[in-house]
């Protein structure tokens, strides 16, 4: 058992910046938890507090049932993969991976066995004698992972480990990290601001904003039932359409059922379709202003009724639409999200 439990954790940096404002989270043993959020929302700060690289200003952090607030990083039995990899530049790949074990006085033959095993898993065997300088970005990334897994820690911490790689390698490494974590069953906390990475990796997805948790849960739960306007706009690409609808309604927008009072209506581009299919409750009329074809699907950008709020509609395959065209799109009641414009919270 090695779960991580955060209880009302706060961080105030010297100088008064409150980077984390009371975060409570429970990460079960073996779970892959992903923290996402916009830049500066406190993701790294939270991760570094779990690692012990930043002091905790308030609340408690417990690993494996033991409060670690006052415990040194070395004694927390965690491993961290940094964005810039933080490999030791003067040591060979082998020594980079062996360093942590040597510091802990592991017997020599066991070090050798573990390093070779990790090198085999991560396919870095041919480079064991090289210095990090002589490796490509992807290979360095693997060595950084290797350095984390040889120690068999209780928790893996990742701070945007893939953001320095090109798009293709990023997808490949993302799949490998997922497989590796599944195989090792090590509790992991992973920070990213790439929401695709977040959706695909997470068992538990935590959306953070301004130092607080907006919503935590299974990725698809967040996609299907975002609890706040922020989460609704953050999860999904292209983002959910969010339209403020006053009590009196909007020209070009027909809503059969809706909560009373002014609301923010949310509808994902992929849930708007041109042919009515059954009991649609929403119909919008849009004047197309731009067409974006990405191959498998096409995104239509346009303003409601020609001059209202901007909306995005996804149509499958190739589209024949042209800018200036007037279209009608519908959506079913089950796909609509309503939010309170004052509190930003979901109305069910």
């Amino acid at each position: 058992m090695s779960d991580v439990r955060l209880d009302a954790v706060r961080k105030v940096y010297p100088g008064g910046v409150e980077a984390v404002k009371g975060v409570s989270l429970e990460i079960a043993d073996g779970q892959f938890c992903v923290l996402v959020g916009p830049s500066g929302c406190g993701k790294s700060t939270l991760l570094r507090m779990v690692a012990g690289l930043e002091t905790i200003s308030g609340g408690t952090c417990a690993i494996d049932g033991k409060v670690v607030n006052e415990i040194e990083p070395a004694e927390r039995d965690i491993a961290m993969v940094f964005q810039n990899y933080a490999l030791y530049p003067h040591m060979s790949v082998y020594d980079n991976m062996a360093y942590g074990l040597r510091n802990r006085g592991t017997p020599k033959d066991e070090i050798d066995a573990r390093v070779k095993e990790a090198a085999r898993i991560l396919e870095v065997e041919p480079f064991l004698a090289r210095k990090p300088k002589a490796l490509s970005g992807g290979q360095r990334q693997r060595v950084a992972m290797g350095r984390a897994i040889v120690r068999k820690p209780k928790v893996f911490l990742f701070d945007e480990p893939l953001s320095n790689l090109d798009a293709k390698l990023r997808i490949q490494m993302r799949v490998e990290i997922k497989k590796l974590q599944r195989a090792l069953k090590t509790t992991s906390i992973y920070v990213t601001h790439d929401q695709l990475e977040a959706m695909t990796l997470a068992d538990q997805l935590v959306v953070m904003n301004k130092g607080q948790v907006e919503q935590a849960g299974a990725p698809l739960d967040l996609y299907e039932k975002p609890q706040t306007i922020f989460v609704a706009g953050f999860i999904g690409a292209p983002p959910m359409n969010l339209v403020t609808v006053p009590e009196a309604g909007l020209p070009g927008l027909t809503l059969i059922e809706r909560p009373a009072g002014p609301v923010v209506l949310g509808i994902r581009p992929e849930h708007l379709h041109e042919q009515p299919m059954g009991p649609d409750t929403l119909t919008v009329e849009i004047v197309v202003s731009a067409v974006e074809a990405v191959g498998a699907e096409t995104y239509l950008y346009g303003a409601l009724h020609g001059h209202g709020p901007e909306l995005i509609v996804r149509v499958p395959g190739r589209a024949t639409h042209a800018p200036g065209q007037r279209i009608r799109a519908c959506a079913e009641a089950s796909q609509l999200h309503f939010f309170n414009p004052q509190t930003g919270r979901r109305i069910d």
Partner: protein
Amino acid sequence: MEKRVVFHGKLLPFLLLAPQLLVTLIFFYLPAGQAVWQSFLVQDAFGLSTEFVWFENYQILFAKGEYYRTMLTTAIFSSLVAFFSLSIALLFAVQADKHIKFATGYKTLLIWPYAVAPAIAGVLWLFMFQPSLGLVSQAIRAAGFEWNPLLDQNHAMALVVMAATWKQISYNFLFFLAGLQAIPKSVIEAAAIDGATPMRRFWTIIFPLLSPTTFFLLVVNIVYVFFDTFGIIDAATQGGPAKGTETLVYKVFSDGKSGGDLGGSAAQSVVLMVIVIALTAIQFRYVERKVQY
């Protein structure tokens, strides 16, 4: 598009380089050439006749045990100064790197000694350690230790080592601090997570990563001790007592000026020149390769 100014003709580049070339020529190559020429000559005691003697000056120089003694003195002096000024500067730099909050004041204080002229540094230390009146000497005596750099060679050596070290720490400190700040913080953090104690982190990560800086400073410091400490020695001990603090560069001066042996003194300065050229060559060769990781 990159904009480029193109000069036609060769005159302008030469004119622009001329002042620097002239300065180098007049103040460096000319005296160096003179020294080499002089080292092949012998003057009689009254300066009336001069004779060209090829390498006789060098033969005499290397035949005398005295010159080797001076070499040994210089070696001891420079190793001590290099060792202490490098290690103390590194210690200070590590502290400044940690508490970067107060660093500005701390750094300013540390840089002051570098602005003090060598001769003044010598006099300053001489005053503090002057056997009968010096403040520090009185304290040392009060502690029951018989301190007298005017009579005891080891005490004199300690005095000039302290003065020369004190003056060089600032320079080394600045380079070490810059070197420390160039080490990514995450590398140190990774080592901390990897279970290395602060001491172990220093010796296995920080120190090796600083080695290019250390090597560069080592060479610079040796050159400094060889030449720039002349003022300190002249002001503090004049090479005494009984030549106990006479370094190679001080001997050039005392043999040439007081001893009147211009040829011998020129030969010594040529030897020194060769040493510096060798040191510089080593620096260029190895800073690029061996010490890099």
